């Protein structure tokens, strides 16, 4: 299990590196076609870092505002607050703020830029449907996102991928209205033409690739949080049964969008969409059946 955690961590950092590489490639293509020397790269970096800093500080407030979560204390929801405290102790983290989202669809998410500012939120639907052990599994999963600094990793990827998309947008504007200084410079040698084609292809495909990377990172972090949750609770059955209940439930979280999809323990958007290979590539979460089977494997392997 600990091997799985290490492997997963490597993979998601690889994906983050890939996203940065893609950003540089786009900036390079931008530079090649529109010109302006290293300006393209600088613009890309500026957008990416502004996005990162912005979401680093405001992502939690934004997510909470979108979902309509409200903070609860021990006297309002003793069991929930107790279970969160248990998981905080198990993870060796400070007690996060606990929130409840008034929504009948069972789901949960964690946010906040670091463990000191962490928030764990669950829907009222989740509290109604899960027993104590199952709730502990779900909270363990959310606490793992806090422990693994997933909010930070995801924020980084979202910002970098956002910068890629913005830069590509910018490119189309420039190429239609801007002066192409590069044309006079390139004396139409074969190599330059090939480079230009590669540049265009990069810019066309980059937003798609960015979306794929973003989804892949999110899926990796979800898998990692599942195995970390087992390490914290030492009880794979709780989370497994909770996910089974979520699978049986067809309701969809009301106040959500693609923008916050990666936050939740289970995809809050459409669930059973054909499950084609292409569709799965854009999902922010691995299929529930796959996650349940992974937990079952740990369960059968014993402690």
């Amino acid at each position: 299990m600990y091997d799985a955690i290490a492997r997963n961590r490597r993979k998601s950092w690889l994906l983050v590196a890939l996203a940065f590489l893609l950003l540089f490639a786009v900036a390079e293509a931008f530079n090649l076609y529109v010109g302006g020397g290293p300006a393209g790269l600088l613009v890309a970096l500026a957008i990416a870092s502004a996005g990162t800093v912005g979401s680093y500080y405001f992502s939690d407030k934004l997510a909470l505002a979108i979902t309509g979560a409200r903070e609860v204390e021990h006297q309002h929801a003793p069991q929930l607050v107790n279970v969160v405290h248990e998981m905080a102790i198990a993870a060796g983290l400070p007690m996060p703020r606990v929130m409840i989202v008034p929504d009948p669809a069972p789901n949960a998410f964690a946010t906040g830029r670091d463990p000191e500012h962490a928030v764990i939120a669950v829907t009222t639907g989740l509290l109604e449907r899960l027993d104590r052990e199952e709730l502990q599994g779900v909270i363990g999963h959310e606490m793992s996102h806090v422990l693994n600094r997933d909010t930070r990793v995801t924020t980084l990827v979202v910002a970098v991928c956002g910068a890629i998309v913005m830069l590509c947008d910018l490119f189309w504007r420039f190429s239609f209205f801007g002066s192409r200084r590069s044309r006079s410079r390139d004396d139409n040698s074969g190599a330059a033409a090939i480079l230009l084609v590669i540049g265009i292809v990069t810019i066309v495909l980059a937003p798609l690739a960015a979306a794929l990377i973003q989804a892949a990172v999110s899926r990796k972090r979800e898998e990692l949080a599942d195995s970390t949750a087992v390490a914290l609770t030492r009880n794979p059955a709780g989370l497994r049964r909770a996910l089974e209940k979520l699978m049986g439930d067809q309701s969809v979280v009301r106040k959500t969008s693609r923008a916050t999809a990666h936050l939740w323990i289970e995809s809050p958007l459409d669930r059973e969409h054909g499950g084609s290979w292409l569709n799965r590539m854009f999902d922010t979460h691995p299929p529930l059946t796959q996650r349940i089977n992974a937990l079952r494997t740990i369960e059968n392997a014993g402690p």
Partner: protein
Amino acid sequence: MLLLVVLVVLVVLVLIFIALYNKLVRLRNRVDEAWAQIDVQLRRRYDLIPNLVETVKGYAAHERQTLEAVIAARGAAQSLNAQGASPAAIAQAEGALTNALRGLLAVAEAYPDLKANQNFAQLQEELTTTENKISFARQHYNDTVRQNNTAVETIPTSFVAPIANVTRRDYFELDPTDPSRNPVQVQF
């Protein structure tokens, strides 16, 4: 030149010593912190028990033996804790208390009225969470003790440990054959 070399070597040695010393002190503080976390939960459990016993008494007064076993185990554990006994000794007394509580909750299963009591349900939730917290805090404490003991016994930190006054620490281990190694399971 030679003087300079000697001086550099000395400075490096002093810096290494400071680093090792600080590492050991950090480890010791972490063990103390982790122990404090267990202790908070142990005390919380002592506080919950009188209420629990009173509530159960209201419905199952003739389960005298079980109730007295819990009270006795609580008293023993609390007095050991108050004396500042070693974690190993406290762990043993706490293990006995966990067992006594398990017996009491098993008895409670036979009284539907008691189980329906709002106060009892609340106490049961608080007791469950306290048991879980003790068990999770124990894992964390034992991790920090293992790091501390490894540092005290391995070179080069072992040379500095006596100077920094950092020693081996007890694990908080319940008896391995004891079923109370797993937290009390409460069914709802």
